[in-house]
């Protein structure tokens, strides 16, 4: 039981790290206001990231995390949290 808790805590820490990195990218690279970047924030409605912006976001993620993201993987990504989870799963 304790092992499981420790493991869960570890995942939470990792997710938080990914979120902080994502947040920094959104603020520094895309010029989005820091306060707006929350796990719940919707990319299009809340952060004003349109279809062209998504391509930029993906490029920024790929560079930052040294991964590759296929277009199909983005189908279900509509919020910052979903993006963070996708990135976390690929690390």
């Amino acid at each position: 039981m304790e092992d499981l808790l420790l493991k869960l805590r570890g995942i939470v820490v990792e997710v938080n790290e990914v979120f902080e990195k994502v947040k920094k990218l959104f603020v520094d690279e895309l010029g989005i206001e820091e306060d707006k970047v929350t796990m719940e924030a919707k990319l299009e409605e809340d952060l004003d990231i349109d279809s062209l912006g998504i391509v930029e976001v993906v490029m920024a993620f790929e560079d930052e995390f040294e991964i590759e993201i296929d277009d199909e993987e983005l189908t279900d990504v509509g919020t910052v949290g979903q993006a963070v989870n996708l990135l976390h799963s690929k690390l």
Partner: protein
Amino acid sequence: MSKRRVVITGLGTINPLGNNVTDTWDKLIKGESGIDTITSFETNELPVSFAGEVKNFDANEYMGKQQARKLDKSSQLSIFATEEALKDANLNTDERLGPNVGIVFGTGIGGIGSTEQAVRTFDERGASRINPLAITQLMPNSSTGQVAIQYGIEGPSLTITTACAASANAVGEAKNMIQNGIVDMVVVGGTESGTTPMTIGAFAQIRALSTNNENPKEACKPFDKDRDGFVMGEGSTVLIMESEESALKRGVDIYGYVAGYGATTDAYHITAPAEGGKGAVLAMQNAIKDADLSTEDIDYINAHGTSTPANDKNETAAIKTVFGPKAYEINISSTKSMTGHLLGGGGAFESMVSVLAIQKSIIPPTINLNNPDEECDLKYTPNAAIEKVIKVAMSNSFGFGGHNGVLVFKKD
């Protein structure tokens, strides 16, 4: 049926002299130069190290970083100038302008800086790293689209790319749109931010630019014997044009009337003007005729006056052909001596200068004109502005490609 009359009711500008109409005009009539050593990039490898750059403009501060980074600088400047022009015309910039308003912008080389950046990224990092915004930044119609989006302009839109005649043609085509009843109002602009290491290098290769690196402010000397080429400039100027009826109904002040437009093509050489300025002659004659005026009526000519040996000589010859002996009496000036050559933004800027000259009864000077050239022997208003009542002004713009756009503006 008489043609609808077209008026100018709003002006906005950002250019090497100033970031609004008032500051710009003050400097124009004082004869100040906006040309200086280039600060936005390293010029060590280039034969020319100066230009007319826009100063004190921070796009991130003006429109927010998220929006600014989506736009090429030429479009950032277009939005900045449009905002001033719309407010000046007493229009609400928070409301969409709708389908009865058109937009016509002129530019020479569009988002060339963004093009260069994308090519650099492609070469260094491959296709998958190209900025996804590159296409929408570099396309020449980017300013037209971005300004339309910003202010909800839903009527017809055109982007004109006749090089240095582009925004003179824009003013002319907008006049036709209004005159023909297609729309009641057109947001007309000229924009250019094409001063990059590559363009400086390329223009220098065809010996088009002045190389007076030691004295940037004195480098642009239209009609002077020692002139040695034009000086690159950047900026955007926007005019709100509408039918006289629309302006009267809205109860706004009128700067002046866009009375005549003449457009011709040299069909002679891709850079050199036709000998004696044949295409320019016909464009001036057509513009005067379109305004239902005669050569006797023209009080002031804002010349194309680029400061290249070929332009100034041929433009002078063309003016003599059009006006005969009266050519020696007309006040002429080239404000490019102060701004540099705004390329596709020049026609709109010089249209603004022409209507302000009419409104304020002042002719801005041609600065740096100290040694007259025997082939350029007209009244070019050297070095100091003069006061004079101007009822009719003409503005000349000629572009690489052989494009000639001439406009006639009237006081009433």
